[in-house]
């Protein structure tokens, strides 16, 4: 017989109250865990994809839309800008790098992105096999694209118009896969990269003569330009300068992401508050279970005092009971939360929009777990204090 044995025996003696508390703690912490994991992973994902992009420059319209389309490839872009804008930007002071992107076509729902080799470096991607797309109509596939379509080096495919599946096929202009990228965990895994010329060629067709060629080249456009600042100071001047143009608009991924989170934040805060409410109810349940047991256990507690247990010991025993129940619920809740996120991740994986995994452990989870245990101990402390005052003489109270 040990202190732990005594504690477990006490908990087993009241299975109903113990189970209720364990379940309340588990549900509360699971809710908090799900919200925490989803937001931290979403934030990490957004941040990863926006790395190295200080500013997205595109057509006038919604800034959030511009960033969603240009950095996270989630929304349709607001419109196109002339190719000349790329050179204009590169000439502006404070611009270290400007990478143009030309969007518009897709293959089985994966976006075909006309761009420059610098984009591959920006995404910190490297070839798993094959060669870079160094000529028009050659393409490099992101890892997810290769896995989902089964295409590999040497294969040919034709893009369809539009960013979603089911657009008209550009029949005669087929791409050849020149290489496949290794997985990065970023958005590039789901993109098909090709030189800008490919996109223009697909949409322009063959010019009849040199004059038509010049006309076509003069009217060439890109969808947006990803800009990296040369100095932090550029953040103060460059966006305003771009916005002054009547065709261009600048959007900062960091600012737009913050705005996005403010928009979704209300819902997330609601879910977090719900988790906290469940945990508060769990704490109340710890309190009620121990408080109610006080009168039932008065003899038992007095007997322990009689047999030599100090008041501190009784206090410790009851706080230990509250803490053990809470810890059991917390362990269950963390397992439930991670399991639920892993399941959701597996369900969302084929759609690819929000990669989630239950196998990551976020540091902030420790705060929730610590807070839950502290709450359990606190809820047990009041009845435990009353219990500790049980006089041992109560054993002989009535004859």
């Amino acid at each position: 017989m040990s202190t732990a044995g005594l504690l477990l025996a006490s908990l087993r003696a009241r299975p109903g109250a113990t189970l209720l508390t364990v379940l309340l703690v588990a549900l509360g912490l699971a809710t908090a865990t799900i919200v925490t994991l989803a937001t931290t992973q979403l934030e990490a994902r957004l941040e990863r994809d926006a790395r190295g992009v200080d500013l997205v420059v595109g057509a006038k319209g919604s800034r959030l839309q511009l960033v969603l389309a240009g950095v996270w490839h989630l929304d349709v872009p607001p419109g196109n800008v002339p190719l000349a804008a790329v050179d204009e930007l590169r000439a502006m002071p404070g611009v270290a790098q400007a990478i143009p992107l030309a969007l518009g076509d897709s293959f089985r729902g994966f976006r075909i992105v006309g761009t420059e080799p610098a984009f591959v470096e920006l995404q910190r991607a490297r070839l798993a096999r094959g060669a870079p797309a160094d000529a028009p109509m050659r393409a490099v596939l992101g890892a997810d694209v290769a896995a989902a379509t089964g295409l590999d080096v040497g294969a040919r495919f034709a893009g369809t118009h539009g960013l979603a599946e089911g657009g008209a096929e550009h029949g005669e202009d087929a791409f050849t896969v020149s290489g496949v990228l290794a997985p990065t965990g970023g958005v590039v895994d789901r993109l098909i990269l090709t030189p800008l010329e490919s996109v223009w060629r697909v949409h322009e067709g063959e010019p009849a003569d040199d004059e038509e060629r010049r006309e076509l080249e003069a009217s060439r456009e890109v969808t947006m330009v990803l800009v990296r600042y040369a100095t932090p100071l550029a953040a103060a001047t460059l966006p305003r300068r771009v916005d002054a143009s009547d065709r261009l608009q600048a959007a900062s991924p960091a600012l737009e992401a913050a705005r996005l989170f403010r928009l979704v934040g209300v819902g997330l805060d609601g879910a977090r508050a719900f988790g906290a409410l469940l945990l508060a109810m769990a704490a109340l349940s710890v309190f009620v279970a121990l408080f109610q047991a006080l009168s039932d256990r008065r003899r038992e507690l007095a007997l322990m005092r009689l047999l030599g247990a100090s008041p501190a010991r009784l206090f410790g025993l009851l706080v230990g009971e509250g803490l053990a129940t809470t810890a059991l619920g917390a362990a269950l809740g963390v397992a439930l939360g991670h399991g639920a996120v892993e399941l959701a991740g597996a369900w969302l994986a084929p759609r690819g929009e929000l990669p989630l995994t239950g196998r990551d452990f976020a540091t902030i989870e420790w705060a929730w777990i610590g807070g839950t245990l502290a709450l359990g101990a606190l809820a047990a402390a009041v009845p435990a204090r009353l219990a500790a005052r049980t006089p041992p003489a109560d054993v002989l109270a009535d004859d």
Partner: protein
Amino acid sequence: MSAPPALSIESLVHRRDGRTVLEVPRFELPAGARAVLVGPSGSGKTTLLSLAAGLLPTQAGRVSVAGTELAALAARGARALDRFRATRVGLVPQQPMLFGMLDALDNLLVARHLAGLPPDPGAARELLGRLGLAQLAHRRPRELSRGQQQRVALARALVNRPALILADEPTANLDDDQAAAAIELLAGQARALGAALLVATHDARVRARFETVLALPARAGADADSGEGR
């Protein structure tokens, strides 16, 4: 030369709510001896047991157990008194009052654990065997008969090898044969341990079996025993 008396009382007066509830000028129970404590309801039997067990503080006079004065011990702190009671005094309450969530053996071992003594399952099992409970060591109290529960409670009072065993009305609600057997058991186990035994009772059948009698007079205006010991 000889061992100090198991229980020694001098000029003991205990008052509650301004009223004297117990007065014992002098009483001595030698080591290993046995005595019966008698008196009508309200005469202070439970109060005396509580004082002897150190469950109530000594207000006036002296109470010593196995040569240790309880008031002096209490002055050293509640912890010292708790420890002393747990190891030197075995109390057999009128109700068995076992831990319902523990089996018979664990009920004995928890008494050693709470007294801060090392576990000694061998000795605990042997004690259960001596009380005819060897086969019931892993039964919970609710799976035992009332008589078996009382024997477990007795075993628990003995497991720490106390110098003084205090029994509170051990024969209440027992028929003649059971009462005789219960007293026989108590006296026999106390003798086997070399412990002194003080049995509080208002049962004449018990009184007849003891040579030393501490009789408490009826107290004027005393009501029922309820509330005593608080």
